[in-house]
C-alpha cells in the first residue's frame, strides 16, 4: 500500500500552490496522504489540507520555527514520517526542500530523487522522470521497493483540483529540538513582486538586455499588467539589479508556468533548464540567433525598449 507524507510549504500564512498540486495528484491517483506542516501560526491551515485529502495533518507550530532551520524542520518532518508509517515523502521544489529532502533520506536510510517532473506507480514500484545534465536528458529513475522513498517534485507538474476545507485530524508534534550548532540569525527579505515564482501562472523574466536597474522598472508595468511574477537571469541577479530569489534556472528557481516571457534573455543552458518546462514561451531579443528562440513558441526579434511598451499597451487593451 502506498502511503505518502506531503511536506507542506507556507507563504504569507497560506498553503502554497505546489503543495496543493501534490495533494491533488495523490487524491486523484487513489493513494493515501498525510501532511506535515512546520512553522509559526500554521495550525489554522490544517483544515485546508484536509479538504485537499490529507488524512492526518502533523503540525509543528512553534515560534522557533518562524525562520528556516534545518535541524528543527528536519526533526518535525522525520517525526511525522515515523508516526504516519508512510513509505513515501513528497516535497515540492523549493530551496528548503533541496536541503531537507536529501538529509531526511539519509536520516531514515531512504532513497532520494531531487527533482521529478513525472511520477509513475506500478504496484509498489515507483519510477520518476528526472531531468539531468542541464535538462539535456530525462532520466527514468526507479526506486528500490524496500525502504522510504523521498522525492522532490517540480512545481507545475500537477494541477490543483478545487476543494473546500474540512475539519482535519490533527496530530501535534513536540516542540522542535533546538540545535545551537546551526542558527538562522535573520532572513534578509527580498522580493521583486507580490507573486511567488513557484505559485505564478505567468512569469516575466528579464536578462542583461534590460541594461540596468532602470530597465527593471521599465519592464515592471508589463509584469503588473499581466498579473505575473517577476523573475530574472543570473546575470541580472549577480549585477544586483534584482533580488537573489528571483533567479530562474538551474541554481535558482525551476519553474513551469502556463506562460513565460523572456525579455532580453539570451537563453543559456542553465537558464533554460529552469524554465523550458513552461507551457508557452514568448521571447523578446534583438539578436535573431539568440538560443532562447530555439525554445520560444513566439519569438519577437527586436529592441525590448521598443517592444515592451507596445506589449504593455496591447495587454492593457485586451484586459480592459
Amino acid at each position, binding site marked *: 500500500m502506498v502511503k505518502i507524507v506531503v511536506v507542506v510549504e507556507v507563504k504569507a500564512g497560506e498553503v502554497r500552490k505546489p503543495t496543493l498540486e501534490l495533494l491533488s495528484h495523490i487524491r486523484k491517483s487513489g493513494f493515501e496522504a498525510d501532511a506535515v506542516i512546520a512553522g509559526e501560526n500554521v495550525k489554522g491551515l490544517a483544515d485546508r489540507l484536509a479538504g485537499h485529502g490529507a488524512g492526518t495533518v502533523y503540525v509543528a507550530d512553534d515560534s522557533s520555527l518562524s525562520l528556516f532551520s534545518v535541524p528543527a524542520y528536519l526533526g518535525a518532518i522525520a517525526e511525522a514520517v515515523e508516526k504516519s508509517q508512510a513509505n513515501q515523502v513528497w516535497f515540492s521544489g523549493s530551496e528548503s526542500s533541496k536541503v531537507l529532502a536529501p538529509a531526511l533520506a539519509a536520516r531514515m536510510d531512504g532513497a532520494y530523487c531531487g527533482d521529478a517532473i513525472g511520477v509513475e506507480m506500478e504496484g509498489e514500484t515507483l519510477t520518476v522522470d528526472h531531468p539531468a545534465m542541464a535538462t539535456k536528458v530525462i532520466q527514468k529513475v526507479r526506486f*528500490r521497493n524496500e525502504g522510504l522513498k523521498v522525492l522532490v517534485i517540480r512545481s507545475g507538474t500537477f494541477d490543483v483540483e478545487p476543494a473546500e476545507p474540512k475539519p482535519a485530524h490533527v496530530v501535534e508534534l513536540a516542540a522542535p529540538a533546538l540545535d545551537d550548532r546551526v542558527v538562522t540569525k535573520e532572513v534578509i527579505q527580498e522580493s521583486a513582486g507580490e507573486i511567488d515564482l513557484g505559485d505564478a501562472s505567468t512569469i516575466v523574466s528579464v536578462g542583461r538586455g534590460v541594461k540596468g536597474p532602470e530597465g527593471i522598472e521599465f519592464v515592471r508595468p508589463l509584469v503588473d499588467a499581466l498579473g505575473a511574477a517577476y523573475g530574472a537571469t543570473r546575470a541580472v541577479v549577480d549585477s544586483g539589479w534584482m533580488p537573489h530569489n528571483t533567479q530562474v534556472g538551474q541554481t535558482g528557481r525551476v519553474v513551469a508556468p502556463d506562460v513565460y516571457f523572456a525579455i532580453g534573455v539570451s537563453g543559456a543552458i542553465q537558464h533554460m533548464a529552469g524554465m523550458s518546462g513552461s507551457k508557452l514561451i514568448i521571447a523578446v531579443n534583438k539578436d535573431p540567433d539568440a538560443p532562447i528562440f530555439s525554445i520560444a513558441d513566439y519569438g519577437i526579434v527586436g529592441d525590448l525598449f521598443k517592444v515592451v511598451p507596445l506589449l504593455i499597451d496591447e495587454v492593457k487593451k485586451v484586459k480592459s
Partner: protein
Amino acid sequence: MRHRADFSGGELNVIVLIKHVIDVELNVRVRDGSVVQDGMTYVLSKWDENAIEAALVLKDAHDGEVTAVTIGPERSGESLRKALAMGVDKGVHINDPATEGSDSMGYARILAKTVTRQPYDLILAGRQSQDTDQGGTGPMLAELLNIPLVGNVVEIAAVDGTKLTAHRNGDAGKEVVEVTLPALLTANDSLNEPRLASLRGIMAAKNKPMEILTLADLEIDPATVGAAGAGTEVVEMQPPRARAAGQKFEGAPEEITKEVMGLLVNEAKIFG
C-alpha cells in the same frame, strides 16, 4: 569521535568534494536509452569549482590545508589534478569499480568513511553535480556525519575560532546562518568566480600528494554502495520532450508585436 582540527583562529582545514562529470555544455545525445559516450569529454563539475575557490580563499585567510576528494574511475584523476593546480594541497581519489552505479547516498556513505580519516573544520561540496542534477550528496553527508549543514551558499561572511557565518539563498530571501565548526556547506555558483590554474600551479601540482584508495582501504562493504547498494537506479535515459517548433517574428516592432499579441489572444488563448 572528534573530527575537528585544532582551529582557534589558527589553521582551518577544509575538505572539498569534487566530481568529474560529462561536459554538459557539449551536445549531449541519447541513443537506445543511454547517453552516447562517443566524442564526449569530462570536466570538473562547475559548482565544485566554486567550492574549491571558496576553500582556497579561506586557506589564504587562515592557513591550514585543503584536501580535494573524488570518487570515480581513472579519468577522475584529471579533476583532482586541476584542483591541485588551482592551489589545493592534497588529493584523495577513491577509485574502485564497485562504486559504479552509486546514487547520491552511495557516494555520501563512501565520503563519510573517507573524510573521518583526518581531522577537518569544514567540508565544501557543490550544490549539485552537473551530470546528476540531484543535489543529494552534500546534505546526506552532513546528516551521516551529524554536522551542521548550510545548503546553497552565496557568501561566506565571517569565520572566527569556532564559528562560521554563511549566507544562503533561501525561499524568502537571503538567510544569514551561523554554524559551529565542523560544518558542511554546499556552494551556489554565485559564491565566487573560480580562479584559473596558473602555469606555476600546474607545475607545482605534479609534486603534490595524491592518495589512491579502494573500498577495502576504507573498510566499506561493497554491497552497501555502487549499483548493489543503490536505493535508486537510472533505468533509462530519454531526450527531453521536443517543443513544437515556434514562430519567429522580424520586422517593424509595431507590426510584429501586434501580430504576436493577436496570436496570444486567438491562438494560444492566454487571456482566457
